């Protein structure tokens, strides 16, 4: 009996089923189950309770504060990301690799260390605290501190999405545009931007999701005053500690929905613009 031909690079059905089950079981156990718990706990108290929690002035203030912090931090990091990617991808200079390492650094710094760092700089026992207090400038335990911490933890997101993409695209198109008489800004707007727009959007999305969700760094330098310096993730902790578990999970569910929305847009972009994203897909 001749054996049935099997493609040598094709796994056997048993192996496929085994590996597939392992993958799905692992993802289900570690990633999906916690997600289900969030929504299960959030709706335990019924829709009415969820609604009261959401419309509570303190919750709304927390949502507002988180959004304000993100609205300041994300555009700043986006401008930075574009500038950094432009000089790194389009020019050669000494120390470039080191610069890339430094840009990556905030990503692997523990959020708690980020909070600590700003306490050491702007705290009353730190470098600038007393001087700034003399001018009545409040950084820590107020919006500026929360924004600074958010900028730090989301620092490399846009830059790291753009750098490989722009390195890959080279500089021929831009050079052609410039030799035809386009100004630098026109070149960027008409030539570079269309090439990187999806990667850019992708980076902004990730940056935004992380900005809304930051906990450790903000926790160290927020005043934890409800209605004033409590961000959404901190409000989750506050409600949790106030015996309002369901409320905590309701706010957690809002944050989760924002995260899921980010993922959905991201997946949509990947599906719709797969080719353009391919270059940056090493993520």
């Amino acid at each position, binding site marked *: 009996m001749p054996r049935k031909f099997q493609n040598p690079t094709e796994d056997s059905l048993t192996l496929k089923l085994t590996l597939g089950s392992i993958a799905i079981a692992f993802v289900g156990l570690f990633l999906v189950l916690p997600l289900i718990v969030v929504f299960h706990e959030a709706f335990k108290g019924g829709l009415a309770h969820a609604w009261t929690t959401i419309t509570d002035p303190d919750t709304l203030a927390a949502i507002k504060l988180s959004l304000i912090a993100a609205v300041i931090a994300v555009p700043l990091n986006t401008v930075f990301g574009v500038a950094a990617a432009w000089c790194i991808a389009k020019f050669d200079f000494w120390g470039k690799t080191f610069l890339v390492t430094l840009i990556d650094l905030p990503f692997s710094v523990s959020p708690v260390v980020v909070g600590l760092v700003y306490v050491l700089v702007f705290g009353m026992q730190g470098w600038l605290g007393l001087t700034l207090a003399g001018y009545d400038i409040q950084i*820590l335990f107020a919006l500026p501190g929360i924004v600074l911490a958010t900028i730090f933890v989301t620092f490399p997101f846009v830059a790291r999405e753009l750098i490989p993409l722009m390195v890959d695209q080279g500089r021929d198109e831009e050079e052609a545009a410039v030799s035809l008489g386009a100004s630098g800004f026109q070149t960027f707007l008409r030539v570079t931007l269309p090439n990187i727009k999806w990667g850019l959007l992708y980076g902004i999305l990730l940056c935004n999701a992380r900005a809304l969700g930051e906990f450790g760094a903000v926790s160290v330098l927020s005043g*934890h*005053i409800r209605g004033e310096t409590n961000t959404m993730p901190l409000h989750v902790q*506050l409600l949790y500690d106030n015996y309002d578990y369901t409320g905590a999970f309701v706010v957690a569910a809002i944050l989760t929905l924002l995260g899921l929305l980010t993922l959905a847009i991201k997946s949509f972009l990947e599906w719709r613009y797969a080719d353009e994203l391919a270059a940056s897909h090493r993520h």
Partner: protein
Amino acid sequence: MTLVNVSYDPTRELYQHLASAFAKSLKADNVTLRTSNSGSGSQARAVIDGQQADVVTLALAADIDAIARTAKLLPADWQKRLPQNSSPYTSTIVFLVRKGNPKGLRDWNDLVKPGVGVITPNPKTSGGARWAYLAAWSYAGKQLGANDGKTRDFVGRLYKNVPVLDSGARGSTVTFTKRAIGDVLLSWENEAHLALKEAPGQFEIVYPSRSILAEPPVALLDRNVDRRGTRAVAEAFLKFLYTPEAQEIQARDFFRPRDPKVLAKYSKQFPRIELTTVDSEFGGWEKAQATHFADKGVFDRIFGK
């Protein structure tokens, strides 16, 4: 005008209730009291680093001493400025056990037995945990005849039975009540009553033979109120805490009021037990803090082993 009150962990409900009563007493709608709650030590740290608080209402004097010493926001003799050591209410440390007290825990010596899970926060960051530690120390000292080595051994065995060390009192309550960890929670009296109210029929309070008189102090931060122009309101608020009306609210939230009349009215919910004090037994908070809770202090040595 917003008055910022930086407080310790288990006063979340209390200051919410007091805030509305205070606003009413002022007959002014434009005054809001905002309270931040966390472990007493972490709150003091935040104030020292520049958190803009008008008043602090912390778990113990040592934390406000640290603010006076390090950040100089108020004079060193702050505790003499208000009646009763600046503590409008007192409290103590009690045991919260599961319904029916299945392990039969009656007193501190039951807690060092093998197999008993004791839940208490980290004395390094939580005020209530420091009161609980000193209460245990005082009991052991009395039972074992003022022998420091034996006392330390007793307290050491107690902490060997601790499976989770949260950073604040509320975290420990959540661990014990919601996560079902441990057999006994060393709890603020008010926190224990609140747990009973939150989950009726699931827990019981046990009063040990001896505990400690906890005096959570309140203070005005002079430098901050003068800069923010809130001194008058802040002073009014602290004075308000001593009024019969506020004392009632405190009693209803299970803090022991100083006002003898109010205390008498609520005497049923505050059983009289033997209470030691930090001043009489430990030479005041400054000394107790340095001996037991400072870096390389007794607590560190207990856990360092």
